[in-house]
């Protein structure tokens, strides 16, 4: 018996007798003999719970996490404070261990959470329809592409270079499958080049993809940029950081047909990149083309209010090859974490958090720009992340900061070769003024040392 199974020798004997076989091996005889493994797997023997714990703790120890270092890394995932009630609620068995709510009568808790989550995301984005969640941000962008093909019958996407590099790459990957062309429009002064965008969009364009704040942290004028999509009958898809929507004009008020993004900043931990969730909101016109689960309100036979999975005729288990998407995961537990976090922040707190981020980020940007060897990469407005240029090799500077216990930011060179000297710095409510000052000092010292050729 493993520690998770219960069949005693006596149980097994009784069960085998009921089946009418003498050995469990007989049940495996339906596997042709040459295909039976016939040897133990080449894996170690099982360990006790205490040993597993120690083994995993030893691995975790070899990572520099946001408790070991002061973390200014962002680029789509952020070191926000997750309130204690998120852990308390998401660790309840009733939310942690059920499957997708296929039996609504005994899944009202989970379905109502989805309905509340949809309401919250609809409020954040100012679009009437939200699904219950997708895998994460970049694959949500790719799903929007699939929707746009279905909605317009066209197969070309025009994509701002300000869209997260992982989103752009994922969109290209998916496009090779469903068949679409991806055209990229560059940035000017940190913002999407409006003239280039207008020139790239035409009557063959299925969708225009923008991100605000974009990957360099700059707040785009989505309304002005997106008008060209409307003129040519293309969908406007806007990727956004949900935590900024307490203060920034929501995509729904800027003409977006679809607003989506990475949900991690809402109540989800970093987890080295996942699991988190993607959110996906749209206009009424797209409701029957939406990907993923959607909870809807209804009544039971006694007239009592209840919730079910709505519009299931879009989905793979009903529509098979004609489904609007192949996804069946809603990242329900991660969406619950987001909902609890949003309820905890509340109407006032959500806005205050946005203001707090904007003010600390403005301070950090000024403070860093005052350091010898650092200048802003762009002057566009920012909320919670900004880009600077360093007058010394970025990797070497980052290494010196790391040695002082600071993860100073994300080097832009890998994704933007034109910004090989660029550093992206993210601010959360956990990054105090003192930490920002320490970052400025560490960067200044590191740049100076590099320029003077001092050995690290």
């Amino acid at each position, binding site marked *: 018996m493993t520690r998770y*199974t219960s069949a005693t020798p006596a*149980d097994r004997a009784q069960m085998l007798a009921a089946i009418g076989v003498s050995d469990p091996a007989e049940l495996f005889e339906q596997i042709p003999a040459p295909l039976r493994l016939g040897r133990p797997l080449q894996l170690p023997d*099982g360990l006790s719970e205490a040993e597993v714990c120690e083994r995993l703790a030893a691995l975790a120890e070899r990572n520099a996490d946001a408790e070991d270092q002061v973390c200014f890394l962002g680029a789509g995932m952020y070191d926000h404070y997750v309130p204690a009630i998120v852990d308390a609620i998401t660790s309840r068995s009733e939310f942690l261990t059920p499957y997708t709510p296929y039996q609504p009568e005994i899944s009202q*808790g989970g379905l109502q959470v989805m309905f509340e989550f949809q309401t919250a995301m609809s409020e954040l984005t100012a679009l009437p329809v939200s699904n219950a969640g997708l895998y994460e941000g970049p694959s949500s962008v790719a799903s929007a592409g699939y929707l746009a093909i279905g909605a317009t019958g066209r197969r070309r996407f025009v994509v701002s270079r300000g869209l997260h590099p992982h989103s752009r790459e994922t969109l290209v990957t*998916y496009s090779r499958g469903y068949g679409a062309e991806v055209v990229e429009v560059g940035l000017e002064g940190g913002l999407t080049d409006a003239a280039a965008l207008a020139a790239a969009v035409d009557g063959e364009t299925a969708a225009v993809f923008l991100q605000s704040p974009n990957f360099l942290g700059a707040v785009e004028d989505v309304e002005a940029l997106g008008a060209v999509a409307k003129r040519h009958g293309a969908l406007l898809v806007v990727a956004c950081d949900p935590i900024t929507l307490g203060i920034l004009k929501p995509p729904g008020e800027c003409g977006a047909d679809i607003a989506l993004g990475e949900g991690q900043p809402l109540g989800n931990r970093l*987890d080295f990149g996942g699991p988190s969730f993607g959110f996906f909101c749209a206009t009424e016109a797209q409701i029957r083309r939406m990907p993923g689960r959607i909870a809807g309100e209804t009544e039971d*036979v006694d007239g009592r209010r209840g919730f079910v999975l709505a519009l299931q005729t879009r989905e793979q*288990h009903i529509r098979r090859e004609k489904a609007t998407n192949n996804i069946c995961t809603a990242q329900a537990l991660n969406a619950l974490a987001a909902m609890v976090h949003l309820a905890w922040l509340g109407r006032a*707190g959500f806005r205050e958090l946005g203001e707090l981020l904007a003010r600390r980020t403005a301070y950090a940007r000024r403070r860093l720009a005052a350091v010898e060897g650092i200048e802003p990469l762009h002057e566009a407005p920012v909320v919670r992340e900004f880009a600077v240029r360093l007058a010394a090799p970025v990797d070497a500077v980052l290494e010196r900061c790391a040695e002082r216990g600071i993860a100073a930011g994300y080097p832009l060179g890998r994704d933007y070769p034109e910004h090989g000297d660029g550093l992206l710095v993210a601010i959360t409510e956990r990054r105090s003024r003192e930490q920002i000052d320490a970052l400025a000092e560490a960067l200044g010292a590191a740049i100076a040392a590099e320029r003077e050729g001092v050995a690290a």
Partner: protein
Amino acid sequence: MQRERAETIFEKSKPGRRAATLPAAGVPESPLAELIPVRLLRAEPPRLPEIAEPEIVRHYNRLSRRNFDLDSGFYPLGSCTMKHNPRLNERVAALPGHARLHPAQDPRRAQGALELMWLLQGSLAEICGLPHVSLQPSAGSHGELAGLLLTRAYHADRGERRTKVLAPDTSHGTNPASVTMAGYEVVKVATNERGGVEMDDLRTQIDADPEQVACLMLTNPNTLGLFDENIAEIARLIHAAGGTLYYDGANLNAVMGHSRPGDMGFDIVHVNLHKSFSQPHGGGGPGAGPIAVSDRIEPYLPRPQVVRREGGNGHGPSYDLDHERPKSIGRLRGFQGNFGVFVRSYAYILSLGADGLAEASETAVLNANYLKARLAAGRAGERLPVAFDRHCMHEFVLSGKPMKRELGLTTLDLAKRLLDFGFHPPTVYFPLLVEEALMVEPTETETKESLDAFADAVEQILAEAEEDAEVAKSAPYTTPVRRLDEVRATRRPVVRQAL
């Protein structure tokens, strides 16, 4: 369960209440309009609930009591592998070194995480019998899409363009949906009288245009819980036509340590870490759907890939993320995948070890066959016969056709009545080729007592229906709500709270 009238958290909101207190800014409190142009700012904040912490906690605790869950009782949902979720795995996933590790951390400072991924890849490769693994796909359906994109890239690299993907009529709905999304056309293959692929039909479909066959997607054991004895011949036929063979790993829990997809001839396998490897389902996610592939598919695996570099001069090995993969299909998502899921599944594999995994599968198969026998010995033997009468693997499919004909009870009615007995019903109306299908997967972590209790409940419901079928037809009675109007929710969708 909790049965009061549903009220959303938005309806419990009252102006002026709040839970969060934020840290003081500690920097100049400039008006927002001085930082960001007014036309880019929001006029009114979103109408999130205004509610204090005690009532938030109470609200979600009450909601939780309107859910049935695996820790409350037997959950024999076919093809979903509702096995116990060890709490040890939650503990190790929550260690700060995992939970607060930023995904863009320099790989040199994330060696533990990359090593864990490397070790998990190696374990899955051994279990699947295929040498290369990408952990990136976020779920089974994502793995399927990855597999089809890999197939496309593999053929394209050989100068071939193929258009058709074969899938049995018993396949999971995600299979055909993934096929369309990957830009292929689905060709259905029939099922034979033993529940396997109909070989003549397969040959006909291939021979119709062998050069168009890109791939065959198969679940083995299939969705009937039966191992396809012809798998070696199936693989030979597909490979002879130049196609790839894709293994939907939803049913891997039947064969861990007993038989390996790679040895069966599969080129690409996805593994549902949330099924076979104990990641909690979370009420519909998160999960993860890593893929294992053969040598010829390896060059096309998604970017980035975890690699191990042997150290020299007395240094140990080091781990890195390889982004330079010129033939790669590219990214399928952000960052490295659902790492938190990897931690849990790796802890599970360490806990069970080689023997434990094999024993888990053996017990899963034993439990399924025992429950099948228990049911067949009672009224279900006549009313709910097993669709294909032979030993099953980890799950089996019953047909409610006689029950419907003789008692007027549908599979749905039986499922709803089971709710009153405190059980989660099996999967219903799938696979599609079995009329009034009921798909039962007990898993290895259930006791004989649970299986007996379930068989007794089915017996009791059938006996009750012989007296008065109306009882089950109007069930359930004891749940937070009774049968819901699902048609209305689709015809006139209300998908958010009106405010």
